[in-house]
């Protein structure tokens, strides 16, 4: 498998509604063959004179190295601001400049252990490719998908095909169990004897998942979502406080050293600050 990102002009193969989300399939040569689960693409929004200069990052949902129209990548997105609104107006054959795959993928266990995959909202998108890889290695895959409301669940049906067990939660109880996605975790970890949790979703969810994994002594891999200006490691906007292998706390680029980090490595409570002791922090700096 070739590595490193490419920049290509993608073409819209399809754009469909999926609950509260949009499911976009782009023909984009060379991206899929390089993709590992947990990586993302950065899409330019607007035309060559676009007033929106910054690329938008989206987890890769599916990557097909070849197909009737050439290699394709799929993403699932929510309309949030002007950039995603523009994407939601794309029509078949429209062009979109794609850079990817980017970032550090999910690390896979060496042993065929049992794993729990936790997705919040569109955060479940990268978990399906991950599930396939884990199953190839003989791992048992259990999924927990949660969202605020039923229409913001993504992939609950597909999860049934993908995973040995599926638990669904919604904040409003409209679908599945009422509550947070972390609520069923302790029980599920116990029942399945899982040794790893993979998670993708909002920061607050990742922090909670990391807390649960710490408490239950399991390993966790969390894909974070920080504001990114470049996505390729040159701008330093996307940092968060992470403890490195050398034990040193640094403001670490989530686009190249993440988006996947060990849950125990991230100082979740200190995100948005420069915690005391950070490498290079001004003496006495707090926040």
């Amino acid at each position: 498998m070739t590595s490193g990102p490419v920049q290509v002009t993608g073409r819209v193969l399809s754009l469909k509604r999926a609950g509260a989300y949009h499911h976009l399939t782009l023909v984009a040569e060379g991206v899929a063959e390089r993709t590992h689960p947990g990586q993302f693409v950065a899409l330019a929004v607007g035309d060559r004179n676009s007033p929106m200069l910054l690329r938008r990052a989206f987890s890769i949902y599916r990557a097909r190295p070849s197909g009737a129209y050439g290699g394709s990548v799929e993403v699932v997105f929510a309309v949030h601001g002007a950039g995603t609104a523009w994407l939601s107006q794309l029509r078949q054959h429209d062009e979109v400049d794609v850079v990817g795959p980017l970032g550090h993928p999910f690390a896979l266990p060496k042993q065929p252990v049992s794993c729990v995959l936790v997705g919040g909202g569109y955060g479940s998108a990268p978990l399906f490719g991950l599930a396939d890889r884990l199953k190839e290695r003989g791992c048992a895959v259990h999924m927990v998908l949660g969202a605020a409301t039923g229409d913001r669940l993504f992939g609950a049906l597909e999860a049934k095909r993908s995973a040995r067990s599926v638990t669904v939660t919604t904040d409003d109880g409209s679908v599945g169990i009422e509550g947070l996605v972390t609520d069923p975790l302790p029980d599920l970890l116990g029942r399945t004897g899982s040794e790893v949790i993979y998670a993708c979703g909002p920061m607050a969810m990742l922090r909670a998942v990391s807390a649960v994994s710490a408490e239950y002594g399991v390993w966790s891999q969390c894909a974070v979502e920080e504001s990114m200006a470049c996505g390729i490691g040159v701008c330093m906007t996307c940092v968060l406080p992470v403890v490195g292998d050398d034990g040193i706390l640094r403001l670490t680029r989530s686009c190249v050293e993440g988006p996947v980090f060990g849950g125990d490595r991230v100082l979740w409570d200190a995100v948005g600050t420069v915690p005391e002791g950070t490498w290079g922090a001004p003496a006495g700096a707090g926040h």
Partner: protein
Amino acid sequence: MSVPGPVLPSEVDLTTSLAGVSLPNPVLTASGCAAAGRELDQFFDVADLGAVVTKSIMLDPRSGRPTPRMAETPSGMLNSIGLQGPGIDGFLASDLPWLLRRRARPVVSIAGSTLGEYAELARRLGNTPGVTAVEVNISCPNLENRGLVFACDRHQAARVISAVRRDTPRGVPVLAKLSPDVTNIVDIAESVVDAGADGLVMINTLLGISIDPETMRPVLGGVTGGLSGPAIRPVAVRCVWQVHQAMPDVPIVGVGGIRTGADALEFMLAGASAVQVGTVIFNDPSAPTRVLEELRVELAARSFKAAREAVGFAHRGDVPR
């Protein structure tokens, strides 16, 4: 100018001279928008550029500011990175050797909080072979002078430049990078040139603020940030124009919102001998080489046989309107 007549893009002589150092072409990266070149090398060969300007390096490692560090604005962005970086030792141990191995031409940007830090950085770089030029980022708060930005005071700016010039080997040009946030850019330019700057880089970002409609507080962790991107291009071109008008012999590197080869040409016509591509790299990681190829086409279309001929062309009164 060259005798008008059809010029093929491939025939255009792109070589330029940056305060005495010759470069294969006039397109550089802007400091802080290309790290130290390594990541961009995935998209194009960094040795194809005129030079790679590194992220401003300080004496010690720096964590930078808290996040959020960016806000998108119409045709621009605000950033407040706070000069996060490994410090000069880390830079000399890893980034610089990599650039030299790749046969890229490194222009090292330095930044300090005191006069002494700038001088020390210059000394450390002065002992290091392979540095194409030193770019002095003086848009930093001066901790010895109530945090006032060096670049906003003609005397402080000049003191930094003369300290750096003193400790930089003769053959290595010292370029002063100026801030547009001043009443009179020509005044600052003259002051740093008198202090020994071999060339000028214009412009650094404009001070801006963006307020988050949800939290109703400033978006940036650092409250204020630097505005960059095509939005500021008219201001940058104006600075280049004014300073070239006042000091036509001082080499200028133009930077601020360059997105296309036509934009790069605009800076050259206004008086820049070279240009830097910054924020637009975030939009298009191939932008530096794309701009270079587009510039070649723009020059040829106007019958310029050499990029040098375009420098300051817009000032020539004899050009028919």
